[in-house]
């Protein structure tokens, strides 16, 4: 019972923390989706204790808390892959901006000479 209360409070804090970040525009909605889904998932599991055992049995995991770790791990990996994709996109954009800037600098110095 004690652990359930702690996990409900913990999940609530986490959920509000994520929502608050989005509300304050510190976190873009598009990038926060996985976090929101994850926080809701943990909130549900905290309230519904048998749920974890139920899901574990469903996928054939004997030790129920392992399911929790599995979900956590998968989510974190997904988020990291999302980060890599975002970084790659940004590299492309930075490249274009760098090139554009160099070309504009050249044009400006040419105009100044005239």
């Amino acid at each position, binding site marked *: 019972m004690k652990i359930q209360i702690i996990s409900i409070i913990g999940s609530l804090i986490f959920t509000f923390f994520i929502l608050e970040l989005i509300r304050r525009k510190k976190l873009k909605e598009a990038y926060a989706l996985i976090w929101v889904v994850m926080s809701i998932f943990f909130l549900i599991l905290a309230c519904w204790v048998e749920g974890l055992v139920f899901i574990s049995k469903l996928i054939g995991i004997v030790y129920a808390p392992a399911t929790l770790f599995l979900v956590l791990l998968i989510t974190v990996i997904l988020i990291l892959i999302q980060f890599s994709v975002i970084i790659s996109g940004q590299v*492309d954009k*930075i*490249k274009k901006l*760098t*090139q554009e*800037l*160099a*070309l504009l*600098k*050249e044009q400006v110095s040419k105009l100044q000479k005239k």
Partner: protein
Amino acid sequence: MKLKVAVIIPCFNEQDNIINVIDDILNNMPENEDWQAIAVNDCSTDETFVKLQADGRAVILDLPCNSGVGTAVQTGFRYAWENNFDFALKFDGDGQHRADYIPTLLEVLKNDQADFAVGSRFVGNCKQGFKSTSLRRVGIKFFQILIKFVSGYTPSDPTSGFRAYNRKALKFATRYYPNFDYPEPEELVLMKKNNFRIKDVFTEMRERQGGVSSISLPKAIYYMFKVGFAIFMVASRSKEKDFSL
């Protein structure tokens, strides 16, 4: 109308070589052609930029942050494309390439034998000139086998950065060019994949005139992995729709 040729020189910390390179290019320019040296300064930390400015003969494209040779060269391509150059060349800033071979490279483009010419130390009359270090030769062999495997074309000098582009190849390169350091082997697969006609042309090369080569053993192994992987990825992609021939 004189033929406009853009000679693009990516440079990072080439203060000792860059002016000699520009001299070499302009001294070899035929009278009926207009060669423009385009120096792309990839945020050098030495006096490269100051020297270029004082010299004043080259167009200077100054990248605001260090972005790697691929991005630097592509900036030059974009300049050449936007300013309607007929041909573009990539020419190293360290003095390894010899400008007296530029006309040889351009010749195959002018005759429409190829869209894209690669200066090679290892075709035809290959007893002359500097042949490269043994480490580099291992890399060359490795990329030859790999590129032949994925594209069917055996490049005689896959790591050579001495290359010439006609308008079609130039347009493609402004859009698609390997981003990071050491883009040469990957570019061959990319061009072949997109149906550009590639021709290897014999050119002599010199040893570096000054400065330090950017390739040490661990770095070389890292690059062979990275570029090798990139080659497989390029080969696995379909042709680029907008620009392929």
